[in-house]
């Protein structure tokens, strides 16, 4: 079944999955993060009122925007890698290279977004 964990939590945390494991974890965090916070954003816009306004004020705060941009951009770029490698299975041989390309795309785009968000927040 494979549904029981046979190792201790500590061993599990030290799992040496390296690059692919890191993308898996970040993909999951990004996906769940987007699902939760975009749902809250939708509900807040729908319900309005003081609670909705507070929720949307938090959502639109620049610190939170940095987080949700990270979720969305990483999920999108990693998702494109997964899609391409899954739909053309022969390319799976180049997974490691694909992950390098992924970071090479993600870091400049996200870095630029961080720069713009912080500059706007600082009033520039």
């Amino acid at each position, binding site marked *: *079944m494979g*549904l029981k964990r046979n190792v201790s939590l500590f061993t599990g945390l030290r799992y040496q999955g390296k690059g692919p494991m890191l993308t898996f974890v970040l993909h*999951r965090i990004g*996906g*769940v993060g*987007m*699902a939760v916070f*975009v*749902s809250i954003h*939708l*509900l807040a*816009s*729908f319900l309005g009122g003081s609670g909705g306004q507070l929720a949307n004020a938090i959502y639109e705060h620049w610190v939170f*925007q940095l987080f949700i*941009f990270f979720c*969305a951009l990483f999920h*999108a770029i990693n*998702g*494109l890698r*997964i*899609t391409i490698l*899954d*739909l053309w299975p022969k390319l799976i041989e180049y997974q490691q290279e694909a992950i390098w390309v992924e970071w090479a795309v993600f870091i400049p785009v996200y870095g*630029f*977004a961080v720069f*713009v*968000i912080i500059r*706007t927040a600082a009033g520039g």
Partner: protein
Amino acid sequence: MAEKSRNLSLSQRGMNFETLMWYFTRLSALAMYGFILFAIIGALVMGARTQMNFADMMRWGFMPNGTHVQNSNVTDLEPWVSPFWKLMGSGLLLVAVAHGVHGLVVVCDDYIASARGRQIVRFLSIIMMLAMSFIGLYIIWTS
């Protein structure tokens, strides 16, 4: 050597609802790329190059809704709230909700092992999908 998979029926090749959703997840990802790139190109055509910064542009790209450009320097909001963009936003919303809710089911399946628990997750996921779709459509078409 086994028989060529092409000669087997779809069910013999393991085609079931989960496989179908596996394909849907990948294909809807490509569809969302299409929607988002289209929205960004549309924004550039409507004058975003001089009136919006990168962050505003991404916000518009992830959901082409007029409220997402209100805080930018766009002078004329009229083209940004046209029925065309509402239709595009609705398409993106429906694809994204289906993709996201199915993603949550996949995540839950990794941690919930019992058949009963998985059934409950699926039931809740359908309710969440319908609710989010209708609420989203309501916001898009009334804002």
